[in-house]
């Protein structure tokens, strides 16, 4: 078991960002072919320590995301295990062509790390939000798309991605994320992680929207509503087998993500369910197609009902 999951079990939770940085530093100390490539993002990526301790293994590109990804591809083609670290909002927009051509199409196994994802940047506003990233990445062949929920999933995602010779996009935020489960210590790309069993309704969430889903399930259980909670950390490839199982078992399905309601986890699930005749009452919760309300990340979540209370309320509607 990793230090990170031990921390979680003893109640020490950190931001996924910090776990990413400490995990990367640990594995890079043991493998000099692991590189971090940054776009003036050492501070925001919590890689200052990495840079001081492993100066030969960090490469600063400056605020030039296209070059960041191209250089990462080049390093990767020479056998380096490259983590390209940049805010998700810029990495997956400005450098999208480099991701598509130089990482995915050319099959250079870069690990793209989108930090401060979703609405992590809060009141800095929409230029700094990434609500499109699942949508665009899903439509590009040859990339595994991951939004780890808690510290355990983050540590495992980084560790396992480092050993896999294929492209990854892994995104997370910077607020403290409590451990989701003391007992479920399974992590496998492409396999959903059942955090809580249930049969009345299934809440399929990803990334930092899983915790509020779990809070909703806890609320609902006091009303004798038995909600299952799945952390679908891997958006692509989606664990359709698990989704089918819970869709058959439960009376309704709600998906929750820190992403547009378009093109992300929700629509990925909906597409699978409808094309496989698994027609249950279904709702996608996320950020709607409007100018995002201004405020902190928590305020934005609250405004759009992405909280324990909001998700419980939507759940009750299906089960009345």
């Amino acid at each position: 078991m990793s230090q990170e999951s031990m921390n979680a079990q003893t109640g020490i939770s950190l931001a996924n960002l910090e776990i990413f940085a400490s995990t990367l530093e640990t594995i890079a100390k043991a493998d000099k072919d692991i590189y971090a490539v940054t776009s003036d993002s050492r501070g925001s990526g919590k890689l200052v320590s990495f840079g001081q301790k492993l100066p030969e293994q960090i490469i600063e590109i400056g605020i030039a995301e296209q070059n960041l990804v191209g250089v990462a591809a080049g390093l990767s083609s020479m056998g380096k295990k490259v983590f390209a670290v940049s805010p998700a909002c810029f990495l997956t927009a400005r450098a999208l062509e480099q991701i598509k051509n130089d990482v995915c199409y050319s099959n250079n196994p870069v690990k793209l790390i989108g930090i401060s994802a979703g609405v992590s940047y809060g009141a800095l506003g929409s230029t700094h939000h990434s609500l499109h990233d699942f949508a665009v990445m899903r439509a590009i062949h040859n990339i595994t798309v991951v939004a780890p929920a808690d510290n355990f999933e983050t540590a495992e995602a980084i560790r396992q991605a480092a050993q896999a010779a294929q492209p990854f996009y892994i995104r997370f935020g910077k607020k403290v994320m409590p451990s989701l489960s003391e007992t479920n210590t399974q992590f496998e790309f492409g396999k959903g992680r059942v955090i809580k069993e249930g049969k009345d309704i299934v809440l399929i969430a990803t990334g930092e929207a899983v915790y509020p889903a779990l809070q909703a399930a806890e609320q609902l259980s006091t009303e004798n509503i038995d909600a299952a909670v799945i952390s679908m950390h891997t958006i692509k490839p989606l664990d359709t087998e698990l989704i089918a199982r819970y869709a058959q078992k439960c009376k309704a399905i709600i998906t929750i993500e820190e992403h547009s309601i378009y093109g992300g986890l929700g629509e990925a699930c909906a597409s699978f369910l409808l094309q496989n005749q698994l027609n249950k009452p279904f709702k996608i919760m996320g950020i709607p197609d409007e100018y995002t309300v201004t405020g902190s990340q928590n305020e934005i979540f609250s405004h759009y009902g992405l909280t324990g209370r909001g998700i419980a309320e939507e759940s009750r509607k299906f089960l009345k």
Partner: protein
Amino acid sequence: MMTINELQLKSKEYRRKILKYIYHAKAGHTGGSLSIIDILNVLYNRILKVSPETWSSKTRDIYIQSKGHCVEALYVVLADKGFFPEDDLLTLCQYQSPYIGHPTKKIKGMEQNTGGLGHGLSICCGSALAAKKDESPVKVFTVLGDGEMAEGSNWEAFMFAAHYKLDNLCAVLDYNKLQITAANADVMGLEPLDKKLEAFGWAVKHIDGHDIDALVNTFESLPFEKGKPSFVIAHTVKGKGVSYMENVLKWHHGVPNAEQLEIAMNELG
């Protein structure tokens, strides 16, 4: 080692083959393939330490064609060097053929899937830096087009290469002065390019991109300045070698008809 004379004969042979396969496929980037071919000839026959036998070696030299569309030129050179049977090129652009209109790694000898302009130099920067980190003798080369130079990503890479003192990196401009719609100077001019690149921290040389002797001497003198990446402004002619194609816009991707092909083959005889 091939002599200058042998290389000059090779260039003619390559030009005939470029036209042969473009004619057969009924598609291709004709003008640019004819302008780049002397550069590729010298690189693959005199400079690059790479061959079919050393293809998977970690110390092979690297060539990435950033102006990916002039792939026909690269195909005929790689075939000639034995990376794949030349007959494969009869499938150029056909259904399910790996020989498409831009380089892909499916073809032995091709490093990256280029075609989107402005990507090659960044990738080369990564490769060159990796080589420096490994204290490896690997040399990295790329060729860009003049239209391509408008892509901002190139200039990010120019900054990077100078910042990291990548003197194992050489970029070449196939400066044939024409892009698709019009002359480069009219679309989005580059001049004064040498001053711009020098300001970005590169060591720059101008040569005639069809002068085999100059190409050999220039590449053999790399790096031009220790601690700086090198840039070769190779002045070329789009459609070089075929009288009715030279400097004519429409031959960017024109396919000769049978009569035109015969005229061209005679001129290149």
